[in-house]
């Protein structure tokens, strides 16, 4: 498809579903077993120009909505959670650039180039000393005036960079200047040719193994235009946090649906073996499908509300940056990430020993291990502590 043609949502979703079923699914077990990057599926997503799906048609992209991306995440998540997570994390970066930097010529050109070259962007927010606290940085941007332009340098000791070794470009948080407070952060895109990464450890985890997220020491440079003018604090509350929670929830729905689909197939097989009687597992399945529907409904409700609020002209100063909204979108993340392992666990009980075996078509091992990452990626206790603090002042009036 030429870059100038914008595709409809249904075409994009159909392409993603086909990649999920035919490519991501084929390699998912190897990706998990070897803790390797899902290269085949990501290459297919690039070939289908899905990495630039959200970029508006005026800059050459398909102009997809967040809802379309959530649906794509679910489709990918059903077959290979690592592929889905890499896709989601990349899209969080693209959405942030489109929403907060696309009025700047440097970024307009970058987004056009992203459509052409399908660059994969990784996020560098974690840092030694501040851990998983996205809204604090220890490192800082160091600016120097040289000839006719202002250059910057940046060194960051990141505790984790998902697909750091496989990404093209990086979007990095850092203190705005040497004397800036640790929550006064800028967001900077650094280009492949301008940075080096020194891997400082391994990524050998229980689940989400294909995201390849070891620690790295990052050294980068660039021109001042790459430092996005909007403070990261503003982008974080109105875009980064809600979009992350919605896209992740899409993936988690996909993992849940994969587990439930195996349970459905198992119950159907039991029913076929003994026609005329409803197997006892069918009751458990009925319960499980009910829980999955609740999960989907809460994701959908938050998604619709977010898309409406984000389309409002005063979104940056309005409801999205308010404490009641922060509480609500945090609750979505906590709830969906808690419900996911419960769903997979119940699907495992339905499938019994065949779900427990690794070499069975009903195996729940990968889904269950992946599911447990949900509560940890931005730890739920950290989020609940934030909510507890907000509830000291919120009144629900």
């Amino acid at each position: 498809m030429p870059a100038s043609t914008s595709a409809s949502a249904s075409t994009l979703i159909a392409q993603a579903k086909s990649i999920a079923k035919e490519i991501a699914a084929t390699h998912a077990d190897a990706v998990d077993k070897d803790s390797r990057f899902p290269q085949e599926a990501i290459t297919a997503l690039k070939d289908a120009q899905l990495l630039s799906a959200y970029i508006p048609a005026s800059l050459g992209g398909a102009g997809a909505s967040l809802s379309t991306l959530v649906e794509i995440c679910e489709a990918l998540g059903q077959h290979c959670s690592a592929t889905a997570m890499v896709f989601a994390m990349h899209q969080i970066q693209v959405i942030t650039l489109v929403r907060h930097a696309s009025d700047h010529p440097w970024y307009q050109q970058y987004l056009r180039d992203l459509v052409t070259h399908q660059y994969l962007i990784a996020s560098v927010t974690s840092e030694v000393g501040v851990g998983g606290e996205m809204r604090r940085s220890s490192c800082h941007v160091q600016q120097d005036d040289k000839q006719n332009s202002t250059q910057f340098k940046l060194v960051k000791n990141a505790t984790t960079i998902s697909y750091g070794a496989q990404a093209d470009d990086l979007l990095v948080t850092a203190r705005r200047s040497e004397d800036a407070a640790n929550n006064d952060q800028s967001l900077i895109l650094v280009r492949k040719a301008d940075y080096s990464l020194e891997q400082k450890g391994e990524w050998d985890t229980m689940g989400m193994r294909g995201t390849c997220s070891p620690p790295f020491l990052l050294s980068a440079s660039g021109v001042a235009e790459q430092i996005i003018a909007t403070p990261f604090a503003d982008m974080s509350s109105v875009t980064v946090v809600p979009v992350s929670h919605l896209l992740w929830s899409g993936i988690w729905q996909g993992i849940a649906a994969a587990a439930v689909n195996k349970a459905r197939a198992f119950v159907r097989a039991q029913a076929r073996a003994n026609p005329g009687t409803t197997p006892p597992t069918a009751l458990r399945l009925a319960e499980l499908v009910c829980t999955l529907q609740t999960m989907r409904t809460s994701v959908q409700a938050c998604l619709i509300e977010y898309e409406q609020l984000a389309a409002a002209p005063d979104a940056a100063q309005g409801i999205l940056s308010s404490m009641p909204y922060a509480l609500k979108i945090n609750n979505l993340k906590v709830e969906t990430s808690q419900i996911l392992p419960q769903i997979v666990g119940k699907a495992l009980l339905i499938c019994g020993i065949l779900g427990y075996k690794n070499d069975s078509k009903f195996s729940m091992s990968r889904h269950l291990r992946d599911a447990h990452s949900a509560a940890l990626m931005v730890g739920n206790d950290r989020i609940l502590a934030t909510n507890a603090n907000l509830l000291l002042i919120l009144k629900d009036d």
Partner: protein
Amino acid sequence: MSIEKIRQVLKDHARLAVDIATLADDADLYEAGMTSHASVNVMLALEDAFDLEFPDRMLKRSVFESMAAMDAAIQELTA
């Protein structure tokens, strides 16, 4: 008067990276290092000091980003 009271609350609760005395009324407090967590303590202390309650619609970054903005919100609630 109320700005001085706000200053005192910030001095006690905002945990800024700089001395509050060096900041203008309209200085950005988040830039001065006030975290979201500290801003909640500031709000609670202001509610106590001024004997009022901030409705949820006021609980957003822009209302607490400077002493002048807090003063405007308090004036609106006490008018």
